């Protein structure tokens, strides 16, 4: 694999370029099809409300996938990610309007590890609330 960032060029605290990801109802329908997760809480407002949700919510795995892009875009080769984990702390509520939701993802190098790897800690916020917790990736750099 060929990460484009060198281990020697980063230090603890180095920030990765942050990104905002819009999440629309259409995106959730598309993700449902691509992932095979057709749970109606991700596309059926009536069903979502019947089970106590405020509205349709995004797939947790969709949010996890979007957050990963901050790391893979930075690293170049997505295979540089050797370990990636998150906790789903709050749902991303996606209203049926022209805006949908926005997930803001920031990340920084939290530790330099052995074997030219670093630990990157991520934050993902929607509507002022952390939607991912303990979001960490281990990335092997050049």
């Amino acid at each position, binding site marked *: *694999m060929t990460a484009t960032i060198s281990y020697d060029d980063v230090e603890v605290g180095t920030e990765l370029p942050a990104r905002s990801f819009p999440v629309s109802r259409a995106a959730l329908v598309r993700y449902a099809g691509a992932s095979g997760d057709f749970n109606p809480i991700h596309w059926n407002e009536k069903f979502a409300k019947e089970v106590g949700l405020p509205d349709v919510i995004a797939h947790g795995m969709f949010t*996890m*996938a979007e957050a990963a892009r901050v790391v893979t875009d930075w690293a170049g080769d997505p295979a540089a990610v050797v*370990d990636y984990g998150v*906790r789903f702390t709050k*749902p991303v509520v996606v209203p049926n309007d022209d805006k949908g939701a926005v997930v803001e993802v920031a990340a920084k190098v939290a530790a330099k590890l052995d074997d030219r790897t670093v630990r990157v800690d991520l934050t993902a916020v929607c509507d002022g609330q952390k939607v991912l917790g303990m979001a960490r990736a281990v990335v092997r750099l050049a």
Partner: protein
Amino acid sequence: MALDQSFVGRTYPPTAPYEVGREKIREFAEAIGDDNPAYTDPEAAKAYGHPDVIAPPTFVFSITFRAAHRLVVEDPELGLDYSRVVHGDQKFTYARPVRAGDRLSVTCTIDSIKSLAGNDVLSVRGDVHDGSGELVVTAHTKLVARGAGAEQSTEA
């Protein structure tokens, strides 16, 4: 009712192989809006040293979760009530990226069963092997089954 602790350590038989296709990877990459050429352009993937296009890091969840669902969640002996289950944590450890042409088989193991604040917390490990038996990735999935009297959680 708490889940039976004797299921901890139980390993289920490997799943029939899932063949990873280029177009399925493309569909997934487009669905997450990711235009990294390593996912769609074999030449770009080769420039990174991969024999074919690779899949985004979370792609494999579709395969591991399907296995966990069919084998563990629907295991009548375990008796998990899926209508109460939400996805708590997810972690992947990669030996190498998933790539087009892989024939992937998942072996599910129940790593732990815990009871926290009236909820059952089930940790399932999915070891994903390729057609030659090499480990590709391990997925750790934590499922939380809300207890009847527990505070409503809204995660998925």
